[in-house]
């Protein structure tokens, strides 16, 4: 190897060490505690595989996370596009508006949703005032509430991811497409969209992964059926049942990786179809 290249890659070393110490080692430790409890055993993994409740919660979690991630892209992409189309100084202010809620604690934002969606909450009060409904609707403690709140909490992530992909696009390419005879909508669909797709898919992946680990929001504003894997892990950790908690986490990690690879693959296919 060229000596400069070698020296250059040494620059990665601090980051690698950091990742190794604070990401790789703890993760391996989780995997270890799922099969050593304290001696080698497959008891915990078997229990997660055989007791039907885990599988149901598993599907639940993946479903919620996928819906949130996909809706996030559908809603976040146009927002990012809008911001990107504004003059520079306005872009900065709009981005700040997107970022401010991201800096607020998830707990506070979950509680805010409780105030809005409650039986005597703002939304019901407004609807009754406007005579749209007569008695309060059940909005809180439903799956719908979980989707809305998680989406609101995670949307900024998607907007930022899509936006940063869009800022990289060379607008001359769009002009070139127009000169070559593409209608504006065609230039958007066949040039701009594919070029911003990669960042958008990355946003979908991040939102999906963050959703998989949610447990406070579904516990506070969901109904009894909105149990997520994070809630189960918490239950077992509270009982100091590390083996089983780790086993759930291992399956969670595997499922997340599998779905992430699937999303990436589908995204690439989608991009190819557009061009």
């Amino acid at each position: 190897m060229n000596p400069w290249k070698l020296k250059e890659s040494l620059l990665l070393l601090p980051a690698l060490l950091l990742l190794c110490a604070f990401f790789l080692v703890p993760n391996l430790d989780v995997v270890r505690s799922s099969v050593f409890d304290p001696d080698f055993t497959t008891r915990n993994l078997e229990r997660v595989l055989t007791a039907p409740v885990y599988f149901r919660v598993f599907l639940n979690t993946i479903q919620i996370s996928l819906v949130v991630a996909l809706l996030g892209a559908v809603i976040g992409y146009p927002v990012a596009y809008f911001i990107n189309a504004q003059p520079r100084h306005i872009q900065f202010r709009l981005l700040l508006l997107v970022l401010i809620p991201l800096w607020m604690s998830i707990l506070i934002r979950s509680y805010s949703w409780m105030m809005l969606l409650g039986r005597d909450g703002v939304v019901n009060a407004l609807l009754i005032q406007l005579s749209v409904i007569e008695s309060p609707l059940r909005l809180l403690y439903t799956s719908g509430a979980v989707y809305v709140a998680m989406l609101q909490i995670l949307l900024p992530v998607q907007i930022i991811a899509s936006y940063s992909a869009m800022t990289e696009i060379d607008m001359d390419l769009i002009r070139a497409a127009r000169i070559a005879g593409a209608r504006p909508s065609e230039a958007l669909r066949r040039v701009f969209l594919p070029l911003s797709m990669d960042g958008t898919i990355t946003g979908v992946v991040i939102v999906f992964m963050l959703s998989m680990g949610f447990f406070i929001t579904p516990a506070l504003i969901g109904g009894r059926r909105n149990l997520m894997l994070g809630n189960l892990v918490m239950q077992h950790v509270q009982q100091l049942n590390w083996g089983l908690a780790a086993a759930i986490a291992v399956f969670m990690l595997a499922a997340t990786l599998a779905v992430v690879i699937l999303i990436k693959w589908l995204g690439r296919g989608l991009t190819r179809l557009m061009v």
Partner: protein
Amino acid sequence: MAGVLAVLAVAASMQVLASDKVLNVVWSGGTAGEAERKVFVPEFEKKTGAKVEMKASELALLAQLESMVKVGDTHWDVAELAGGKLEIAAEKGLLEPLDYSLIDPENKLPDMARSKYGVVWGTYSTVLVQNTSKNPKGAVMKSWKDFWNVKAFPGPRSLRAWPQENLEYALLADDVPKADIYKVLATKEGVERALKKLGELKPYIPVWWENGAQSVQLLADGEVFYSTTFNGRVSKLVSDGIPAQIVWNGGALHLAYMGIPKGSKNVALAHEYIKLRVMRPDLGRDYLKYMPYPSFAPGLLDGLPKETIDSLPASPENSELQFVSNTQFWKDNIDRIQERWNEWMLE
């Protein structure tokens, strides 16, 4: 120059002395923590010259404790271990054994207040609470049977989102005598029987509460009309203008323990705090002004007005109406029952 150095050296050594005498207490937050800070902490600081650092305990209290003990760096000295935490912590070897010759040299605490790794600092109850303004005219809930009677008492209800106590309540509503609850729950059929009874209420329970603050919030917001909660939360509801009334009948009486985390660097001082916390009737009475969680301090109830005694979970009358929550049973069976419970919740 030398003078400055001397001053610095003295200041530094004072720093060491002062930091030697810090007692780290992990206690529940909210009103209970406030009351602790108002009543016991100042007295202890005055008496010993030590400083008390109070930290609100979190959901993962035991997990934090276990990792501290494992790493060998325990920076807690006294911990509140209510709701079955004592049994788990003791089994995992996370606590120092208590020296009762320091805490209760004259042997005045009742046996039920003393255990090897924990001493009872208070009794509290998980009870049914009704918002009487939502009751049908003239009706008052008196038992779990009434809670289950959605015709006589229509309206949304709430229970805690876990199996503990709820299965007991269901069995009581299903005519199981108090004395037999845990015998019935020890069998698979018993758990199914309780869940079946709870199933009758499922459509009327829009929300299962996760923590004490939420349970009273639900009642205050009108989200539900009837709910279980900790008896200590009810007076706040009443002072906020909600006509909340406790149904002691069939309530779950809990013993709340405190202990010393293994590896605490202030074991002797911790014993002193515990002694002050559980043995002083004057402070105990003071505490009752803020929280209706009485200790077993000898002579605690002497001279208290009858209405105060009636508001306590362990008053002779109230304890007669309730059952004692069997935390040992739950420690031994929680795994099996929790899984079934989760499944049932998803159905």
